[in-house]
């Protein structure tokens, strides 16, 4: 028997390295519900990568869904790979072991497609490590017919321009149907004997509008560094590429049998997605903007996914996931029926919702009938009333105080509040208002609960302007000012003798946010910065212990030395209406003029309601995509 060396398992070689690395279990696979498909019988072979450590990547819903959807197809195989930590990377280089899948430990270079899911731009350097370890040329232009197609998906793929040089294609939007269409096109092309090689396979994907192929577009620049225009290089390629939108979640009850990793991960629970999309209209929120419209899973659909998933996994906790879970139109009935169903069992339910209202507290009470009431989280996002108007977070201070009072009175001991720093038009005073709000929360909480041992944790993230949002034109706050404002806030809380000790403050320095900003709103020239930073050792940039701002700064200086642009140009510079943005040819369904008007409304501190409950505001998604909001009819049990 001959073994195809190129696709043979590397496990015997890897096994000798595993005693030498931290947490070796993350590299061996063997998860409950992992699928094994015969390699030789498969016509199209996918490897999906989540470009972060296994402990973060393994629970990722996107990868788990597509893994199952693909493996269910006849003649299709799908395996998974994750970023390896630097200790194993060094050993793999020393012992010539390529990037491998955790399922059957085959080299990723042996697959037809390497699909990479980017939830965050800070995973870009990990893609380069995987390609390099996988012996796949870093630049798409250098790849040959034997190399996999490298296709990006996930939220960051809505502006794939900074990694355009490393990608063969990008898929915008929901992946379930898109991966099947890609599979069909590749299957047909392979069955024909791969006519025209790699370029033809990509042409078919692009011409069908399934995927964006950066190499088929030319970017022209103005002398001052702005983009002049982005032009397709062939006439069978669309000028704009639209996102994929899955319309009936009940037809796609994935994952049906979620993977249960052996290694400990960041989410030790099962997740059921109860709806996709959000129309709250928070202006900072890219997820809410690019996943429109709202599409709910039915109550019975959720209930059967919970029941089947628990049986398949043995998990003792289920999270009901979405961008704002308390907003499901049947959420009260759903939580009550699930709480009834699992009362007295060892199964607990969680609803990751941060909505600031009493209804949210009622839901949390219901889900913790017999459990400990430890902490509840709310996200006012802006510290001052004015700031919340700018970001369209329609919560008054009165709402917030009343909500936390209800929570403390119901037995919750700790309230966590999420805020952002660096929002457009923000002043020092807006951030200091967070301290005042937190003091008020404790004061009212002590009254409502009659106890002094209640706590409030203030958690602050740095705001990074994102493509396809009304804030895509905004100048990002420089990290020095971010750090100064956060230090002033910390001092204000510490100085409070009466309440300060009951208030915890969590924040990170502003530097990683600056690099995230560069990668979020960058254009193709930023690819050189990424490559240079990676060559200088950038890995795991989402981890503070690995992130090195100095390295990125130097890489940006060197890589952009011959360009009229620099790090500040990409981050702190406000863009004008007429400027061509790097992602303008990528269609999230949102009307550019609507986004601009919303940006102007933000500057005027004007609000816009949720279109689930008010008339349409013409954001463009439903018209453009022929889709519509899907909310279950009130009172319907279905």
């Amino acid at each position: 028997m001959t073994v195809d060396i190129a696709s043979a398992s590397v496990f015997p070689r890897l096994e000798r390295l595993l005693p030498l690395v931290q947490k070796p279990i993350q590299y061996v696979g063997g998860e409950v519900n992992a699928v094994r498909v015969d390699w030789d019988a498969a016509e199209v072979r996918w490897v999906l990568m989540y470009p972060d450590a296994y402990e973060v990547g393994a629970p990722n819903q996107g990868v788990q869904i597509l893994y199952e959807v693909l493996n269910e197809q006849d003649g299709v195989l799908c395996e998974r790979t994750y970023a390896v930590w630097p200790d194993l990377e060094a050993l793999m280089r020393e012992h010539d072991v390529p990037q491998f899948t955790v399922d059957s430990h085959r080299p990723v270079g042996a697959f037809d497609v390497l699909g990479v899911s980017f939830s965050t731009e800070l995973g870009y350097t990990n893609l380069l490590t995987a390609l390099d370890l996988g012996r796949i040329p870093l630049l798409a232009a250098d790849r040959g017919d034997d190399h996999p197609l490298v296709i990006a998906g996930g939220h960051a793929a809505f502006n794939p321009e900074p990694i355009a040089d490393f990608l063969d294609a990008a898929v915008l939007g929901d992946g379930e149907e898109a991966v099947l269409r890609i599979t069909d096109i590749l299957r047909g092309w392979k069955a024909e004997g791969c006519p025209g090689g790699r370029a033809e396979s990509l042409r078919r994907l692009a011409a069908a509008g399934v995927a964006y192929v950066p190499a088929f577009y030319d970017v022209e620049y103005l002398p001052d560094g702005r983009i002049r225009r982005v032009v397709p290089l062939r006439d069978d390629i669309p000028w704009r590429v639209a996102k994929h939108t899955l319309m009936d979640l009940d037809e796609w009850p994935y994952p049906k049998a979620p993977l249960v990793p052996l290694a400990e991960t960041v989410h030790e629970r099962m997740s059921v997605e109860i709806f996709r999309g959000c129309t709250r209209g928070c202006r900072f929120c890219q997820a809410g903007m690019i996943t429109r419209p709202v599409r709910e899973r039915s109550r019975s659909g959720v209930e059967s996914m919970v029941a089947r998933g628990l049986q398949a996994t043995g998990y003792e906790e289920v999270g009901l996931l979405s961008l704002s879970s308390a907003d499901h139109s049947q959420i009260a009935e759903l939580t009550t029926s699930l709480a009834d169903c699992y009362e007295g069992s060892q199964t607990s339910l969680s609803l990751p919702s941060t909505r600031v209202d009493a209804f949210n507290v009622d839901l949390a009470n219901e889900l913790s009938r017999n459990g400990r009431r430890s902490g509840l989280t709310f996200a006012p996002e802006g510290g001052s009333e004015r700031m919340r108007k700018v970001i369209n977070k329609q919560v008054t201070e009165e709402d917030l105080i009343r909500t936390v009072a209800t929570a403390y009175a119901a037995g919750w001991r700790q309230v966590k509040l999420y805020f952002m720093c660096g929002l457009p038009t923000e002043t020092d005073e807006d951030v200091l208002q967070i301290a005042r709000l937190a003091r008020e929360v404790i004061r009212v909480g002590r009254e409502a609960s009659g106890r002094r041992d209640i706590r409030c944790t203030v958690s602050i993230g740095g705001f990074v302007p994102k493509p396809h949002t009304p804030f895509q034109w905004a100048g990002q706050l420089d990290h020095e000012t971010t750090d100064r404002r956060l230090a002033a806030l910390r001092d204000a809380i510490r100085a409070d003798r009466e309440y300060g000790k009951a208030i915890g403050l969590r924040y990170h320095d502003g530097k990683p946010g600056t690099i995230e900003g560069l990668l979020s709103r960058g254009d193709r020239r930023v690819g050189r910065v990424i490559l240079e930073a990676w060559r200088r050792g950038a890995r795991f940039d989402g981890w503070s212990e690995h992130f090195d701002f100095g390295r990125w700064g130097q890489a940006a200086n060197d890589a952009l030395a011959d360009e009229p642009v620099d790090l500040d140009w990409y981050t702190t510079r406000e863009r004008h209406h007429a400027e061509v943005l790097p992602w303008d040819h990528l269609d999230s369904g949102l009307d550019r003029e609507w986004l601009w008007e919303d940006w102007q409304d933000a500057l005027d501190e004007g609000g816009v309601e949720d279109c689930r409950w008010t008339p349409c505001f013409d954001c463009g998604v439903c018209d453009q995509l022929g889709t519509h909001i899907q909310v279950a009819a009130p009172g319907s049990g279905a």
Partner: protein
Amino acid sequence: MSRQPPREHVPPVQRFRIRYAKRGRLRFASHRDFQRALERALRRAGVPMAYSAGFTPHPKISYANAAPTGTASEAEYLEIGVAAECDAEDLRERIDAALPQGFDVLEVVRASTPDFAARLQASRWRIELPDVPAHEAQEALDALLATSSAPVERLVKDGRRTIDVRPAILAAGVASERPGQPPCAILTVVVQTVTPSVRPDDILAALRSVAGLIPPVPAQVTREMQGPVGVADSATQVPEGFLLGDPLAADREADQT
């Protein structure tokens, strides 16, 4: 508002002792990894577990002497408490089927004798040393056995700790090589269960410090047995005629009578 834990403490109606193996690539699982996998397997298998009382009830499981991460084992033991009467063989099949392959349930016996943990007096380890000729391993072992004390340092949670390996070694030997095979010394060591524990890594560290034995590739280690020392019944002979008993023998006999 003061909220009370909802559940009264209900004592288990039966306890079972379980011998299981940790094999192949799953030897890289830590003990905590195994614990999570087992608890989920018990739920998938529908085993009627007894739970502790309180706001966060835990299934009644007690573990003994888990083998370190990276070592395989044919002789791991744990005990579970159940809330309804079960059949031992039925439990074995169900739990084994629910656990990932590589965590394999070898035997389930109803617990009817006290002091189980005290019976795990020693472990027999098989340490394979690829690319090390048997005579080199034998010389190193002889040197180690000739000393009266072999302190090694180990990183523990709160810093470095010095452990004397030598007194815990009850017996040891090296298997001779088979002709025609690549060299791979096979060390068999019986180590007393002591606190702090002496692990195979510590034995290897001692062989290194006492005799300069440095294996070119990481050793493959398997725990083959655990049990009472010097018990003759159902015992297996290890080097130097050393006797290691079966810790489940007493429960098995009690169950049959």
